[in-house]
C-alpha cells in the first residue's frame, strides 16, 4: 500500500481542487486551500462560480449530490461573478470546464492509480487490481466525505449502464473467442439461465424464510416479492468482476469461457426478473394474477431473443458497412464502435437485454469486420476497445469503493448481510454442482470437480448488482437502504475476498491453467482438418451431431453470408491463407518490436536456411505480441502525421510528382543518420545476410523450385538497427504491397473489372502487413485506380516528360535531378537508387557479383516479409528480378503507387533479358500486366525516368535483396 499513499495525496488534492471548490469555502476551505490556493484567489468573492443546475444536468452526473448542497450558491449566478469587476487578466472559468474537467480528472486518477499499482509486481500478482481499485475508492471516498461531509460521488446507474458497461461488454463481445464460445454455448446457456434462476429464487425464498424466522431484523421491511427482487439482482454473476478477476487468474480457457459467458448471458435473466419483480412489488403481491406470471415468461423470451436479434441485425449491418469503407479507412474503427454501441442502445431502447445484444453483435460481426477492415484499423479497434474497457473497469471499481463510503447508504442489518452472503455462496455451489452433473452427461469433455470448485468460487457479484439496487425506488421498496448496504457488502466480499483468494486456490488445486499462446499455423491447419474429419465421421455414422451442424453452418456461411458481408477481394482469399498471413504479420511485428530483423518469419522455405532456433524464437515471440503496443504507436503516429495528405482528389500530376518526392527517404533520413555511426556493425551483419541470401538464391536456382525464398536466422544483435529496420520497412512498403497483391489475386480470383481489381489492390495494400504509411498510398492510389491501366500509363509518361521543376526528390536526392552525384546511391546501402547512367555499369558489376556469389557489398536486409513477398512476386511475375525493386525500391517513396501491371510488365521484360533472373520460372505470371508491359516497355525505358524509376520501385527480385541490385541493371 505504500504507493497508494502518495497517490492518495495527489488524488485528494485533485478531488478537492476539482470539486470541493465549488461546494463553498464554507465547507472546510482549509482542506481545499492547500490544494489550490490560486484557484481560491482568482475565484471571485462569490467563491463558487458554478451554478448547481449545470452541475447536476451536466450530463454525466459524476457528482450527483452537488445539487443537494449548494442552494446558497444558486444565488450568485456565475456570470456576474465572472465579469463583474472590470477586466481581469485571468479569469476563473470553472463552471465552463467543470464537467469535462472532473471527468478527465477522474480518468486521470484512475489511470495513475493503475500505474502506481503496477510499480510493484509483487502486489499486483497477489492482489487483483480490482481489489486495489476498490480500496483506493474507499480511501478516496473517505477523503471526499471528510472534506465535504457528504458523499458527492457514487456510481450512477445511468452512467454505468449507458457508458461504462457498454465499453466493457463491447470489448468482451467483439473479442470473444467465438469458436470456444459456441463450442460451449449449451453449457453456458444452462448456467446463465437455469443457474441464475435457481440462484435468484433460492436466495429470494431463503431470505424471506429467514425474515419470517426472525433472523433478519424487523426493520427490513419487505414481503416475499421484495426479497425475490433482491434475490434476482444479487444472484447474477457480474461480467465486469469476473473479467477483472479471471483475467488475472488465467484458468484454462474452457473454464473461463463458461464463467464469463455465463456472466454475460445471464443479463437477460436478471433484467427480466428484476423488471418483473419490480412491477410485482409495485402492484403489490396480492394483485399479481396468474396471467402476470405468464407475461413474465413471455417477456423473458422476448428480452432474450429480441436482444440477440437486435445484436445480430447490427452485426450484419456493421459487417455490410465495412464492406464499403475502403476509401475511408480512417473512420473504419468508428463504424465499429458506433454500431456496436448502437446495438446496445437500441436494445436498451426496447428494454431488451442490452448486454446480450452487444455481445452477439460483437461475436457476429467480428469475423466479417476483421476480414474487411485494414490491418491498421484492426489494431486501432483492438487498442481503443481495450483502453476504453480498461478505463471503464477501473472507474467502476473506484466508484464502487467510493460509493460505499456514504453514511446515507448504511442501513446495516447483520442478519440480512450474513444470510445473503451464506446463501449466495451455498446456492451458487449447489447450483453449479447440480447443473454440472446434468451437463456432464452431454459434454464431450466433462467438467471435473476442480472446475466446479472454481466455477462456484468464481461467482463474483459486481457493479451490475449495485447499479440495479441503487435504481430501486425507495418509496416502493422500503428496505432499499438495507438492500444497498447488503449489496455493497456482497460485492466487496466477492470481489475482494474471493478475488483475492481465487488465485491461490487455483494454484493450490492445480487447476489447469491456460496456455496463453497464439495458435501456430500447424494448429490452425490441423484443427481445420479435425473439423472436417469430425463432420465426415458424423455424416458416415449418420449422426446429426454438433459437427454436422457446424459443417452445415460453415457451408451456409461460405456460400451466402460471407459473400454478402465480405469484400470480394477478401472473400476470395482462403481463410487459412488469412490466418497464415496474420501469423506472419504478428511474428514480423513482434520481431521488429524487439528490435530484431524479421528474417525468419516470412515465407521461409529454403531448407538450407532452416534453423530451428530462429524459428522457435519467432513463434515464442508471437506470444509476446499480445499486449505489445509499440506497433500501434507507430501506426497511429503515421496516420496522424500524414493525414493531411489524404485528400483524395489529387490529379495524376500530383501523384506522379509526389511519387517522386522520395519523401520517406527524406523523412527518415535523420532517423537513419542517427544510426549511421553503427554502420560498421551493420556492415558486418549485412554481409552475413547477403552471403546467406546469395547462397540461398543459388540453391534455389539449382533446384527446380521456382520459389526463391530465403529463410534467415534472426539476428539477435540487431537492436541497434531498429531504426533502420523501420525505415526499410517503410520504404519497402509499396513494393511489397504491390507484390503481394500480385501474388494473390491474379490466380485466385480472376478479376472481372478494373474496378474490382483495383479494389483488391487497395485492400491488399491496406491489409498486408505492417504498413507504416497509412494514408499516403491510399490517397495516391485511389484516384488512379479508376482509370484503365493503359490510360494511366499514358498519363504517366506524358507527365513524366514534363520538365520537372525541382521536386523535393530532386532537391534531396541529388541524383534524381541530374546524374552528377550519383555515387551516393551506388554505395553501401541496398536501398539506393541507381541512376540511369550507371545502370549499365551497375548491371555488369552485379552479374559478375552474382556469379561470384560473394558480394563485396552487403545487402541491407529488407524487412523479411517484404522480402519474402517480393520474392514470391518476383517468382511469379516472371522474375521481375530484373527490375529489382529490392534494391532501389526501398529508396523510393512507399507511396509510390503506380499501377502494378505496368511495372510488372516492364520488369518482366527486363528480366527476360536477364538470364539469371529468368532461370526461375514464373508460376503464374499476371496476365494483364505482362501484356501491357510488353507494349510499353521500350519507351519507358529510355526516355522516361519516372516510369523507369517506377519500375524499379515496384518490382522485386525473385531472389532477395542482394540480387535486388542486379535488377537495377535496367
Amino acid at each position, binding site marked *: 500500500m505504500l504507493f497508494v499513499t502518495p497517490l492518495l495525496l495527489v488524488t485528494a488534492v485533485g478531488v478537492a481542487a476539482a470539486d470541493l471548490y465549488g461546494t463553498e469555502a464554507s465547507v472546510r476551505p482549509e482542506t481545499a486551500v492547500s490544494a489550490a490556493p490560486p484557484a481560491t484567489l482568482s475565484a471571485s468573492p462569490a467563491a463558487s462560480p458554478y451554478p448547481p443546475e449545470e452541475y447536476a444536468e451536466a450530463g454525466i452526473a459524476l457528482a450527483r449530490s452537488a445539487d443537494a448542497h449548494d442552494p446558497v450558491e444558486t444565488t450568485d449566478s456565475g456570470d456576474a461573478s465572472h465579469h463583474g469587476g472590470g477586466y481581469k487578466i485571468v479569469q476563473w472559468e470553472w463552471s465552463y470546464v467543470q464537467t469535462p474537467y472532473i471527468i478527465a480528472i477522474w480518468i486521470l486518477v484512475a489511470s495513475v492509480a493503475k500505474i502506481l499499482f503496477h510499480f510493484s509486481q509483487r502486489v499486483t500478482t497477489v492482489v487483483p487490481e480490482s481489489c486495489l481499485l476498490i480500496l483506493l475508492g474507499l480511501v478516496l471516498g473517505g477523503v471526499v466525505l471528510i472534506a465535504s461531509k457528504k458523499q458527492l460521488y457514487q456510481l450512477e446507474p445511468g452512467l454505468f449502464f449507458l457508458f461504462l458497461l457498454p465499453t466493457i461488454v463491447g470489448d468482451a463481445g467483439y473479442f470473444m473467442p467465438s469458436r470456444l464460445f459456441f*463450442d460451449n454455448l449449451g453449457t453456458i446457456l444452462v448456467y446463465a439461465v437455469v443457474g441464475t434462476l435457481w440462484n435468484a429464487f433460492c436466495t429470494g425464498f431463503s431470505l424471506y424464510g429467514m425474515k419470517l424466522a426472525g433472523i433478519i431484523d424487523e426493520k427490513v421491511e419487505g414481503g416475499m416479492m421484495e426479497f425475490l427482487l433482491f434475490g434476482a439482482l444479487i444472484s447474477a454473476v457480474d461480467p465486469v468482476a469476473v473479467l477483472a478477476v479471471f483475467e488475472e487468474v488465467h484458468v484454462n480457457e*474452457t473454464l473461463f469461457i463458461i464463467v464469463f459467458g455465463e456472466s454475460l448471458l445471464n443479463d437477460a435473466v436478471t433484467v427480466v426478473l428484476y423488471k418483473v419483480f419490480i412491477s410485482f412489488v409495485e402492484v403489490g403481491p396480492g394483485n399479481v394474477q396468474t396471467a402476470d406470471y405468464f407475461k413474465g415468461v413471455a417477456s423473458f423470451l422476448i428480452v432474450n431473443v429480441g436482444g440477440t436479434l437486435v445484436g445480430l441485425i447490427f452485426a450484419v449491418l456493421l459487417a455490410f458497412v465495412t464492406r464499403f469503407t475502403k476509401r475511408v479507412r480512417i473512420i473504419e474503427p468508428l463504424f465499429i464502435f458506433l454500431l456496436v454501441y448502437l446495438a446496445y442502445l437500441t436494445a436498451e431502447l426496447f428494454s431488451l437485454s442490452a448486454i446480450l445484444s452487444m455481445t452477439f453483435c460483437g461475436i457476429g460481426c467480428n469475423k466479417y469486420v476483421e476480414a474487411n477492415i485494414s490491418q491498421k484499423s484492426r489494431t486501432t479497434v483492438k487498442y481503443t476497445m481495450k483502453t476504453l474497457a480498461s478505463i471503464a473497469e477501473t472507474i467502476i471499481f473506484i466508484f464502487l469503493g467510493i460509493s460505499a463510503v456514504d453514511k446515507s447508504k448504511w442501513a446495516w442489518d447483520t442478519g440480512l448481510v450474513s444470510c445473503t452472503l451464506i446463501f449466495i455462496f451455498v446456492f451458487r455451489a449447489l447450483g453449479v454442482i447440480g447443473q454440472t452433473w446434468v451437463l*456432464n452427461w452431454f459434454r*464431450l*469433455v*466433462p467438467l471435473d470437480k476442480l472446475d466446479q470448485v472454481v466455477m462456484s468460487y468464481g461467482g463474483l457479484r459486481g457493479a451490475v448488482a449495485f447499479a440495479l439496487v441503487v435504481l430501486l425506488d425507495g418509496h416502493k421498496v422500503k428496505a432499499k437502504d438495507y438492500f444497498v448496504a447488503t449489496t455493497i457488502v456482497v460485492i466487496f466480499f466477492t470481489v475482494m475476498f474471493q478475488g483475492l483468494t481465487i488465485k491461490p486456490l487455483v494454484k493450490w488445486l492445480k487447476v489447469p491453467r491456460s*496456455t496463453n*499462446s497464439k495458435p*501456430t*499455423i*500447424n*494448429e490452425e*491447419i*490441423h*484443427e*481445420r*482438418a*479435425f473439423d*472436417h*474429419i*469430425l*463432420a*465426415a*465421421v*458424423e*455424416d*458416415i*455414422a*449418420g*449422426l446429426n*451431431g*454438433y459437427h*454436422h451442424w457446424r*459443417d452445415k453452418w460453415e457451408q451456409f456461411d461460405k456460400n451466402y453470408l460471407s459473400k454478402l458481408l465480405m469484400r470480394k477481394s477478401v472473400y476470395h*482469399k*482462403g*481463410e*487459412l*491463407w488469412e490466418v*497464415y498471413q496474420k501469423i*506472419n504479420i504478428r511474428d514480423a511485428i513482434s520481431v521488429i518490436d524487439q528490435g530484431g530483423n524479421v528474417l525468419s518469419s516470412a*515465407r*521461409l*522455405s529454403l*531448407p538450407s536456411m*532452416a534453423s*530451428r532456433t530462429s524459428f522457435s524464437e519467432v*513463434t515464442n515471440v508471437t506470444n509476446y505480441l499480445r499486449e505489445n503496443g509499440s506497433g500501434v504507436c507507430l501506426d497511429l503516429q503515421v496516420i496522424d502525421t500524414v493525414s493531411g495528405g489524404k485528400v483524395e482528389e489529387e490529379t495524376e500530376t500530383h501523384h506522379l510528382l509526389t511519387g517522386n518526392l522520395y519523401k520517406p527517404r527524406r523523412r527518415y533520413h535523420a532517423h537513419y543518420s542517427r544510426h549511421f555511426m553503427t554502420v560498421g556493425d551493420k556492415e558486418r551483419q549485412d554481409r552475413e545476410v547477403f552471403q546467406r541470401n546469395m547462397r540461398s538464391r543459388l540453391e534455389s536456382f539449382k533446384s527446380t523450385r521456382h*520459389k526463391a*525464398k530465403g529463410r534467415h536466422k534472426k539476428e539477435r544483435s540487431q537492436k541497434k538497427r531498429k531504426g533502420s529496420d523501420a525505415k526499410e520497412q517503410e520504404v519497402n512498403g509499396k513494393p511489397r504491397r504491390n507484390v503481394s497483391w500480385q*501474388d*494473390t489475386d491474379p*490466380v*485466385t480470383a480472376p478479376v472481372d473489372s478494373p474496378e474490382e481489381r483495383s479494389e483488391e489492390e487497395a485492400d491488399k495494400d491496406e491489409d498486408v502487413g505492417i504498413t507504416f504509411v497509412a494514408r499516403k498510398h491510399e490517397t495516391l492510389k485511389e484516384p488512379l485506380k479508376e482509370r484503365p491501366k493503359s490510360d494511366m500509363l499514358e498519363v504517366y509518361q506524358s507527365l513524366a516528360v514534363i520538365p520537372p521543376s525541382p521536386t523535393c526528390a530532386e532537391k534531396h536526392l541529388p541524383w534524381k535531378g541530374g546524374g552528377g552525384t550519383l555515387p551516393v546511391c551506388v554505395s553501401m546501402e541496398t536501398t539506393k537508387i541507381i541512376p540511369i547512367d550507371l545502370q549499365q555499369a551497375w548491371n555488369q558489376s552485379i552479374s559478375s557479383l552474382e556469379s561470384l556469389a560473394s558480394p563485396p557489398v552487403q545487402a541491407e536486409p529488407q524487412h523479411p516479409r517484404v522480402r*519474402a513477398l517480393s520474392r*514470391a512476386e518476383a*517468382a*511469379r511475375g516472371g522474375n521481375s528480378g530484373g527490375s529489382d525493386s529490392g534494391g532501389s525500391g526501398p529508396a523510393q517513396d512507399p507511396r509510390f503507387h503506380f499501377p502494378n501491371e505496368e511495372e510488372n510488365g516492364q520488369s518482366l521484360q527486363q528480366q527476360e533479358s536477364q538470364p539469371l533472373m529468368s532461370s526461375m520460372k514464373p*508460376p*503464374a505470371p499476371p496476365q494483364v500486366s505482362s501484356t501491357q508491359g510488353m507494349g510499353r516497355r521500350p519507351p519507358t525505358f529510355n526516355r522516361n525516368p519516372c516510369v523507369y524509376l517506377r519500375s524499379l520501385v515496384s518490382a522485386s527480385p525473385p531472389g532477395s535483396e542482394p540480387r535486388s541490385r542486379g535488377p537495377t541493371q535496367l
Partner: protein
Amino acid sequence: MGSSNSTLSKIPNLGRLIEETGFTPAHIKRLYKRFQALDKGNKGYLSPQDFGSVKELATNPIGDRIIGAFFSQGQETVDFHSFVRILAHFRPLDKNRAKRPDSPEPINSRISKLRFAFQLYDQDNDGKISRDELLQVLRTMLEMQVTEEQLESIADRTIQEADLDGDNAISFDEFRKSLEKVNIEHKMSSRFLH
C-alpha cells in the same frame, strides 16, 4: 428392448467389439443400423461406393481421405467390425474409467485420435508427412481460394514450424508435439448417440 436384442444378436463377436471399442450395446445397435443402411444390397460389408451415398461427404474437402481411412491397405471392403473400430476413434474419452496400466491403449485415446488424423495426411504410410502430402491436403482444404504459390508458402511454414529434426517432413512425433496444446480430446470427439 426385444428388438434391440434381436439386432444385436445378429452381430458376431459382439462382446469383443464392445470390449475393444468401448461402445455400449446401444451405440453398437445404432451403428449397426447405420451400417445396414449404407450397405446397399446387404452384402455384409461396405464398399467405397457405399460411402458415396453419403451426400455430405461430397462437399467435405477431405471426405475422400476419410473414406479411404476405412479401408485398410489394398482392401476394397470394410466389415462391420472395422467400421465400428474406425468410428470408435472418435468416441469421447471415458469419464471415469480408471486406467489400468496393463490394458492396451484404448482405441479412443489421444494418441489414437492423433494417429488417425496423421494417417489421413500420410497417404504413403511412410510415417512422415512430406511436403507434397501436406500440400495435397492443403490444396483440398483451401480449394481454389489461393494460389499454388501461397499454398506452398503455407506448407513450407507449416513444416518449418513442426519439423524438429530438419528432414523437411513431419513425423508423427513432430505432429504430436505441434498439437500439444490442442484439446484433442475435445476436437476429435463426437458425441455418439444423443
